[in-house]
């Protein structure tokens, strides 16, 4: 039973990757289980300067999911390098995926250039899809030109593989993914959260202080799967699938749609052992569906 996969030239023991924003910088989960069982994980979205994020409430519950409007709270890239990565080094011995966000093309390049020098960083996952900040984040991921410009700027400052994380809040995901590929991206990850909102019937006001936020959880899985399928069909670079993944079967389904690796997000927040459970369940699920090598299912439903 072989669960290993390749992601942009780096071998993962398995395709399971906790998604950015649901796993901090790893330490909270390292207290619960040995996080080295993971393929890797994508750390909390990091920006050039420290950010407090949005006012609270930042969280709203939905049927089969949740909305968050955290707004990229993080200590800033310098503290991530001087404090978080050294702490992580003690508990995690694999290359980590560095998730980066920004408010200008220069921001992205600056942050990526600093993270490029970090030995622990395996991949740069460039988030052009955060729905919770103004004047940055998602605005770069909703036009092919802007996404390509960020991709080129980041590629110019790093030798590490660059994965561009795309937003589902667009009319044509394929044209954006293709623009990133043409600009030199080594991979595409999707989907970030879907823009959503809730209103409190008692107060008659939006639940989220920022009015809208990103919807995630099992409810979005079919949408995510569809967009992974469309993207994988159109590009020649690896695709990392995510959105509502909650068990080993979901991982295999994402891979059938063309994902080379699979991220798990909201599930970590309600079940802190979700990724451990999924990693441990993979061999049994593979056996059930007659899969001896997980690589063989990547894109099997696309071809």
């Amino acid at each position, binding site marked *: 039973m072989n669960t290993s996969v390749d992601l942009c030239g780096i071998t993962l023991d398995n395709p399971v990757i906790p998604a950015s924003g*649901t796993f901090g910088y790893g330490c909270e989960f390292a207290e619960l289980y040995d996080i080295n069982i993971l393929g890797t994980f994508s750390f909390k979205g990091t920006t050039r300067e420290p950010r*407090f994020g949005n006012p609270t409430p930042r969280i709203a519950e939905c049927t089969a999911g949740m909305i968050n409007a955290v707004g990229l709270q993080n200590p800033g890239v310098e503290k991530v390098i001087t404090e978080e990565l050294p702490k992580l080094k003690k508990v995690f011995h694999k290359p980590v995926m560095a998730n980066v966000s920004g408010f200008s093309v220069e921001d992205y390049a600056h942050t990526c250039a600093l993270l490029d020098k970090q030995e622990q960083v395996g991949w740069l996952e460039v988030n052009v899809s955060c729905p919770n900040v103004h004047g940055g984040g998602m605005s770069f991921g909703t036009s092919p030109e802007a996404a390509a410009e960020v991709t080129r700027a980041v590629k110019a400052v790093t030798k590490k593989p660059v994965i561009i994380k795309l937003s589902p809040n667009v009319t044509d995901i394929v044209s954006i993914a293709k623009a990133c590929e043409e600009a030199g991206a080594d991979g595409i990850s999707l989907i970030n959260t879907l823009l959503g909102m809730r209103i409190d019937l008692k107060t008659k006001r939006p639940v989220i202080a920022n009015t809208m936020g990103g919807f995630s959880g099992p409810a979005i899985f079919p949408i995510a799967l569809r967009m992974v399928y469309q993207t994988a069909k159109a590009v020649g670079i690896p695709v990392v699938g995510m959105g509502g993944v909650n068990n080993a079967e979901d991982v295999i389904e994402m891979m059938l749609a063309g994902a080379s690796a699979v991220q798990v997000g909201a599930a970590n927040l309600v079940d802190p052992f979700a990724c451990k459970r999924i990693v441990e369940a993979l061999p049994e699920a593979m056996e059930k569906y007659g899969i001896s090598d997980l690589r063989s299912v990547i894109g099997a439903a696309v071809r």
Partner: protein
Amino acid sequence: MKQALLTIEENALIAPSVFRMRLSGDAGELRPGQFVNIRIDGLFLRRPISVCDHEDGVLTIIYKVVGKGTEALSRMGRGEKLDVLCGLGNGYDLTVPCSRPMLIGGGVGVPPLYYLAKALTAAGKDVSVVLGFNRAEEIFYEDEFKALGAKVAVTTADGSYGIRGFVTDALPENADYFYACGPEPMLKTLYKRTAVPGEMSFEERMGCGFGACMGCSCKTITGSKRICKEGPVLKKEELLW
């Protein structure tokens, strides 16, 4: 933090819309002021509820039915099992050098103070408790606090029992520290009225409850803190009020 499968031993109505649930099983070590996060069938997010007591392998929580989650919880019965993340948050600081602490609780802010009062009275401190409710029928745990040997004052907003007014109208004068839990307007008034140092427990909508999602962050004098991880208890001097 510990994930535990706990068994409901009791789920009793003790005041209008207020239930006391007793849960047996290995919840690990729980400190006063900490909370647990309960998974409820059919709802995506867990529900954070403060620890009211923990003794002889029995965890007690007291909750008010305010929405779908607590309503579902209120319909559960003896013998049913709950998936609970235990031992969350920092809890109250029991190492503070004080001898006459006052414990100030409003409504469903009262429960965590019971476990705290138990620890403080056991440590030989002269504990005063002020419990605030809207009206007489909503009062719970007055006798339980008295049984611990604490001096107890009860206030009701409508004057139907005890002292008419709010907890801040009945603060003991000789206290040298305060511990509080209650609605934010109560905490703010307390913050203004008290000359002694103290600490208070806060509420916020949470995603995970264990520090992963940054959903419940707040600003303090010493930087941003997660209510679920560096909180829910914050010291008076770190508040930006």
